[in-house]
């Protein structure tokens, strides 16, 4: 990763509207976090104070200064998921993955997150795995869910 790669990303986003967000989103997607050098390079290229980018990077939950896992498991904790047992789903996943909410497994494979609401409330509780949403998740079957959603991705493998 060279400063140039980051500069290229910055240059691709030309519209002033939402520019900082979309640049940081692309860096986050590509590198699974916002490396310090990326923030520095972007700030320089955009001619913005580094403190502003740091402020943005730490304000929004989509961004992370530490690397996230290869696969993101997001348990929805919207209102309906909450009343339909999302806490039990999270507890089971914490046990299976050996991390607590917000954490990443030691092998860097999984990050377990809590997400606000995926808008699939009629199918609660739902879990998103790498962006695709799975309906009516039961704590007892989270193992199978991960296995089927991520090829070769059984926790603890």
């Amino acid at each position, binding site marked *: 990763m060279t400063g140039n790669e980051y500069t290229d990303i910055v240059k691709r986003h030309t*519209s002033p509207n939402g520019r900082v967000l979309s640049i940081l*989103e692309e860096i986050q997607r590509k590198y699974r976090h916002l490396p310090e050098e990326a923030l520095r390079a972007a700030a320089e290229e955009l001619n913005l104070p580094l403190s502003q980018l740091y402020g943005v990077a730490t*304000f929004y*939950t*989509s961004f992370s200064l530490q690397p996230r896992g290869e696969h993101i498991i997001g348990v929805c904790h919207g209102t309906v998921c909450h009343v339909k047992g999302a806490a039990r789903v999270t507890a089971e996943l914490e046990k299976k993955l050996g991390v607590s909410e917000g954490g990443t497994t030691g092998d860097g494979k999984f990050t377990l997150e809590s997400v*606000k609401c995926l808008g699939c*409330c*009629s199918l609660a509780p739902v879990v998103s795995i790498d962006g695709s949403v799975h*309906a009516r998740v039961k704590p007892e079957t989270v193992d199978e869910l991960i296995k089927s959603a991520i090829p070769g991705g059984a926790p603890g493998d």
Partner: protein
Amino acid sequence: MTEGGIKHRVESGRDLQALEKKGLELLYPGRPRIAVAMASCGRAAGSGRIYESIGDELERRGLDASLVPAGCPGLCSREPLVTVLEPGKARIYYSGVQPADAGPLVSALAGGEVYQKRALGAEVEDRLVVTGRQIDLGPPPGNLGLLADLDFYRPQVRLATRNCGCINPFSIHEYAARGGYRALAEALAGDPSGIIAEIKKSGLRGRGGAGFPTGLKWEITAGSGHDEKYIICNGDEGDPGAYMDRSILEGDPHSVLEGMIIGAYCMGARHGIIYVRAEYPLAIKTVGHAIAQARELGLLGENILNSGLSFDVEVVMGAGAFVCGEETALIASIEGHPGEPRPRPPYPARQGLWGKPTCINNVETLANIPLIAGRGGDWYAGLGTAGSRGTKVFALVGKVKNSGLVEVPMGTTIGDIVLGAGGGPDGGRKLKAVQTGGPSGGCIPASLVDLPVDYESLTGAGTIMGSGGMVVMDESVCMVDMARYFMTFAAGESCGKCTPCREGTAEILDILDRITQGGGRPEDLDTLDELSRVVKDASLCGLGQTATNPVLSTLRYFRSEYEAHIKDKHCPAGVCRNLTVYRINPELCIGCGLCAEECPGGAILGRDDQPRVISQESCTRCGACYRICPQEAIFFTGRGMPGA
């Protein structure tokens, strides 16, 4: 784009008719048309596989049919949903379709039959709301009722969601065939102030939560003299439990674009932005596709429909912050700052994005605009109540039988929505409360089922309309836990800029945590009440000003439940684990052992057909045994109750 059909610029009414004609051929082809509901909710329920399986079956049998994705028709709890339309026949809705159904469904279709096993209802006509035109499809099959007669659809009037589930959201032709872009063409031929007058007459109020009159907002923005102005569509939809905006963006993106273009004409805006939250990737993709299509046909860009109007739209993706739904925070976010609200005035209509006049409207608000521009303000105002005109989409979710999006005239009662369309709580339980307005709203007790749903009535009852979330709660839901849930949300989403919201929500959350864990003190209730009022009065933006509504409303209607938690250390719903003690009634226990199998902690002792006992030391109070017991022999009491 990938669609066949009209490619050149649409410049006149004639070109628009060509678009419409092509769309009608797609919607009503001379062969069967199969549409699979593939919004996010459908996909979560597995509609992707259904779509593939049906495609495979059609190919295997060599059946000539068109297979398209559609948005969500609303009845999400019965997904995956599929509709089949054969020429000259009623449209059949199928629900709960599984991949294994693809074969029999296609073979029934090949034989001109209805696949009874999954059939839900029939539609005999299509009404194009924008034009008032009616298209007859054909007679219903003998043994299947009408979709419109189902409890779920009977009270509905679908205006904002008029095309959701019906058209292929990736087809601008199909949108045009339903009367789309006609209102725009008519509007561009007339005077902007005339349209604003119609919108004012319609009584439309913003559907994003605050309920500000849309016509007035447009008038103010139009009057803010400046050569550069913006119109922003707010698709941040942060209220957990509401998803109508997602459904409209995913199912009918052009309705929002058309609303924005009409707005641009009325207010003199050149730039449009649709701000969509990061959690909605499909909405972002669908809207992006629609923008590209509209641009290709010249419905966005320079000199739209030869009217001299130049306007373009781009999508900005949020990054996971509820407060960014607040309009000044949203602007800060687009400008590249943390999403912190600022005091108003100045209002965005005078000084918004990059300091320029900016009109911010919600997705559902904008989807209504083409209807009002097309059919007139009086027509729209004919629905609803005096203070709340038109319809509202509600996300009817939670402990309710039929769950999904319902669009009803304002003034429909809670009971007609929850017990009527929703069919009441699932599993025959008793209705306890209905929560509206999400984290900014409150809980209405079951005794208020006759309350009409409009802005004023809800506010009077201590809650708000908000964006239209309606979470149904039965006896298994603890109201103190609900208050704690919403405070956790608010405290986590408070941006931290103003002290009452930052410190107040954290302090209230501490108290609620303590109460739900068994450390509640008698004076807590007064403190909660007082603190909640301070946060409400002293916070900078709507987040803090409404964040304590869930606490205030539950204190108002469910005070005794708080008292049980504090005095008896008892959670009547059995939700708060620290307060709950599970026991087995030996007289009812048949010793089946199901509870022991279910128990994750091995806390259930006993053998053979002897009554079981729960070891209180190992019990984690998860309630799994309570839920599984076929004899209802397991019960719970409060920690501080006699016999516990």
